[in-house]
């Protein structure tokens, strides 16, 4: 099996974060209470998503400069995995919001950014499906992918900092850094992020190889 070490490392890190995340001691805060543990499960999804989308963006640039169709297949495989993580991030976030804010959905810049990101990548999938010629499809969807990724970063990374938000870490609300005085949260959070990114790489690699066989 190719790349066995990273696959095992990814699985172990995820197992560690899933189990130790439930059991480690967390800061006791009003309203948030135990739901602070969602940091390990929800925020790590977004980190994994951005990593997948960034890799997909990089592969799209690689295709446009080299005209190598394998890079295009890598790009779409990574974008699909990123989409999966964004759905997971959305669901875990909605669950958290229901218990903490009392609503499944609020008009918040972070949530709007998520909705836009999903719309952008769904449009990307629609675009790919509407072109038959592989080389043309790769080039045109590559152009869209690059443009879309930049817009997504602007929307989720820059605009929320300029407007008010209820979300932790935005609009004057403290992020987890300020509670995490003894690095206990970080000890679970960073392994979770790394583990999910490794698992995402694995999923994408499988999808990429299926595509290669189909060609």
């Amino acid at each position, binding site marked *: 099996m190719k790349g066995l070490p990273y696959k095992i490392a990814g699985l172990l890190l995820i197992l560690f974060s899933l189990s130790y995340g439930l059991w480690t001691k967390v800061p006791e805060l009003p309203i948030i209470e135990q739901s602070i543990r969602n940091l390990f499960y929800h925020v790590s999804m977004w980190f994994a998503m951005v990593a997948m989308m960034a890799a997909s963006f990089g592969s799209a640039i690689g295709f446009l400069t080299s005209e190598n169709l394998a890079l295009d297949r890598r790009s779409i495989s990574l974008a699909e995995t990123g989409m999966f993580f964004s759905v997971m991030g959305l669901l875990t976030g909605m669950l958290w919001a229901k218990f903490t804010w009392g609503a499944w959905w609020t008009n918040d810049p972070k949530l709007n950014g998520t909705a*836009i990101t999903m719309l*952008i990548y769904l*449009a990307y999938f629609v*675009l790919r499906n509407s072109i038959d010629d592989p080389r043309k499809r790769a080039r045109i969807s590559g152009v*869209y992918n*690059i*443009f879309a990724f930049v817009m997504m970063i602007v929307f989720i990374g820059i*605009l929320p900092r300029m*407007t008010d938000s209820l979300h932790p870490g935005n609009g004057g609300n403290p992020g987890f850094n300020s509670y995490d005085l003894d690095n206990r949260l970080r000890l679970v959070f960073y392994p979770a992020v790394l583990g999910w990114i490794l698992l995402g790489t694995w999923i994408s690699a499988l999808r990429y190889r299926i595509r290669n066989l189909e060609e």
Partner: protein
Amino acid sequence: MKNTWVLVRRYFSQEVRNSNVLFSLGLYLVGVAYLIYLLNGGGVPADKVWNSLLWMVVFFGAIQLSSRSFEYESNDYFYYYQTIAGPAATIIAKLLFNGGYIAVISGTTWGLFSIFFGNPVFNTALFGLALLLGSVGCSVVLTLTSGVAQRTQGNATLGAILALPLLLPILQLTSVLNLQAIVGVPTVEALNLLVSLAALDLGIGLLAYLLFPYLWQD
């Protein structure tokens, strides 16, 4: 640079000569503004609603405009222009033309809204500037996405689907600025947002300029 101006002039003269299109766009703007007036029972909408209605009208006008952005350049004509002018001149000319056009659409809509619903804008200069920068941003996104849609054999709805999510960051930023202008925030205090919007326009404009040639290699 010379080629760009020739192309921009050609696009505009083509638009003026084809007065049917211009007329239908004007009719659309007046018709929709009046429709809102009727549905609203002749009342004056609140500032926020006024602003969002304005952008809805401009948005659909701009989508309609961009969907025929490459209409005259399907296939043979396009290769002819590409060969004599080059892709760089073409994209800049398209951006300028669409930007100017959307600015005219949004200015006209502002005028029509002022007639039907009154003009709630306090800081006119800021509002106009935001409208202009927003139009430029919309033009960049719409020019690129209509180019993309055109390459998939002219699927008009696809253009709208591709453009919609990408337009939202620009429209949101512009509309925040517009609301500030309505409330009467001095231009100096909105400078931060204005510069951000201008930088966003410039950044995506540059990106579109770099990406455009890749769309047309066959």
